[in-house]
């Protein structure tokens, strides 16, 4: 999967979990910038990502996967692995 595809799919995940987040803010979104990104949203986002990318994400990584960029990098590495 190309990085562009990963970012497009990840953007869809963010749209689903943070519907009020402006489109332009999604690439820079993080726990620090999105007020709605609480613990419930974090786990929802991870499960949406699992479904969309058909992969499993260890919930212990919840703390480090705290931004659009970190998730994109994680998924990119995961895709490369397989």
């Amino acid at each position, binding site marked *: 999967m190309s990085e562009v595809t990963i970012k497009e799919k990840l953007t*869809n995940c963010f749209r*689903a979990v943070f519907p009020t987040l402006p489109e332009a803010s999604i690439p820079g979104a993080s726990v620090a910038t999105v007020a709605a990104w609480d613990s*419930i949203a974090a786990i929802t986002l991870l499960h949406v990502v699992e479904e969309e990318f058909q992969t499993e994400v260890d919930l212990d990584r919840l703390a480090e996967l705290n931004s659009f960029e970190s998730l994109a990098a994680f998924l990119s590495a995961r895709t490369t692995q397989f």
Partner: protein
Amino acid sequence: MKLTEALQTLREGESSRGTAFPVLLACGFTPLHLETFFGAHLQKSLPGRQVRVASGLYGDLAGTLEREPSEGTQGVAVALEWPDLEARLGYRSLGGWGPAREAEIAHQVQAALGRLCLAIERLSHAVPVAISLPTLPLPPAFHVPGWEAGKAEIAIRADLAKFASRVAECRGVSIANPQRLLEQSPLERRLNLQAELLTGHPYSVPHANAVGAVLARLLLPAAPKKGLITDLDDTVWGGIVGEVGPEAVAWDLDNHAQLHGLYQQTLAALVGQGVLLAAASKNNSDTVEEVFRREDIRLARDKIFPMEVHWGPKSESVGRILETWNVGADGVVFIDDSPMELAEVKAAWPGIDCLLFPRNDHAAALALFRTVRDLFGKRRLADEDGFRLASIRAAADFAQVSHQGPQQDMFLSQAGAVLTAQFNPPLTDSRILELVNKTNQFNLNGVRHTEVEWRRCFDSESSFLLLVYYEDKYGPLGKIAVLAGQREDHTLRVHTWVMSCRAFSRRIEHGCMDLLFSHFDVDELRFDFATTPKNGPFRACFAPFLGVAPEGPFSVTLTQFEEHCPRLHFKVETIV
């Protein structure tokens, strides 16, 4: 449903302008994805409304159920899990497992179930309650190996079964079938232990979807189908009767035709619960009648009406059957062993559910029986279900012998009709709301109500509800009309009026108006009428009173009524 779709569905619901549909999701754990899926499944069933799901306090299921639900709550879904009955049956407590604690755990479960039972019984008087019994595996807390059911575990499960049996007696309570849930969500894929420890939400995403779906379906059950039209050869019996003869067709084990016997048994059971059953078969009718005279047949001939047996197209047979039943195609299922016949009927009647009878495929036959059960299944049966077929038959006889004009008066005067009025019957009578929500043709405005909304219609002291029963020498029709509204000085405002189509042509509608004028001693009836795609018969009924068929709300004065009401021949009785 995927989580993304569920979130999207909820978002669309939030942005819709429909009336709110508030529900309570009662669970002792973090509701998280269960709440999302439950809300999304409800929203899918209620596209015009805004579903709003509230949840109770974490770890306090009993407390949530004991509190009054907030104003306007339309239903309560209870997702019960083992830690709600005893914290040590969950993974977030370290209260101890093992032999020394087993009896105490079982005792605690019993006490917790008793408390929940009382709360649910009380709650069910106010709102519909849907319950999923514990869906997660019991933790390895007991001293016996996992493949053995130990004494404590058996006691716990027995108490749970007693609890379920008791709350199932409550009119407003429905319980998810654990067996069906097991098929949809395998036991080993239900628990997400890591998520439970981290967030307090124990369900895997697919399991949250399965539980959310069943709870939503229990609170908003689909309307059951009304009628089933079946083929005969190689469906009701094995073999082609025209070829092998009436004695050689079979439906038993000895002749390797048990699937047909089971099908007959299924059909007979459906008739017993009020489903209309007809046959459409390409055959000689005399030959078919001979089969039904056999003593070993499991489906009696008189359960089937009408019987369309000839060599014409089945789509035409179906058309005549629908007309006799006065039922729309979308309320009917057609079963045949021939894909060609199914396609022919489907092309003519796209709304009909056409199902293939799989002659030699046992697994497919079982799937068919289950599908039929699901399509026709009803939570509770009314007295009317027991004699629906007989009353349809009587209505057909009635239509054949009744006439229009002066002859109709003579006919009606000899019908021995009794119209029975019950003012303000108990709202717990489920037949009333069933009539209101299912009747299309003689329906004042097509407004449907949830149980909670229906009850709220009668909060005011000026409100009234009239339930009408009918019987004549052709048989009882049972509860056939419902009228509801409010008294406003010398006027009666009617916001609900439905009448079963089986009761047409008897002047019952005039009888109902007569009852309202005389019982309430008012000068005028004001009707909240609205045109719907199907309520033409209602409009037509009022054209003589108004000069034209109504297009919107209208009134009928006592003078107008007396001028235009035809002669009524009922004996009127009242249930107090």
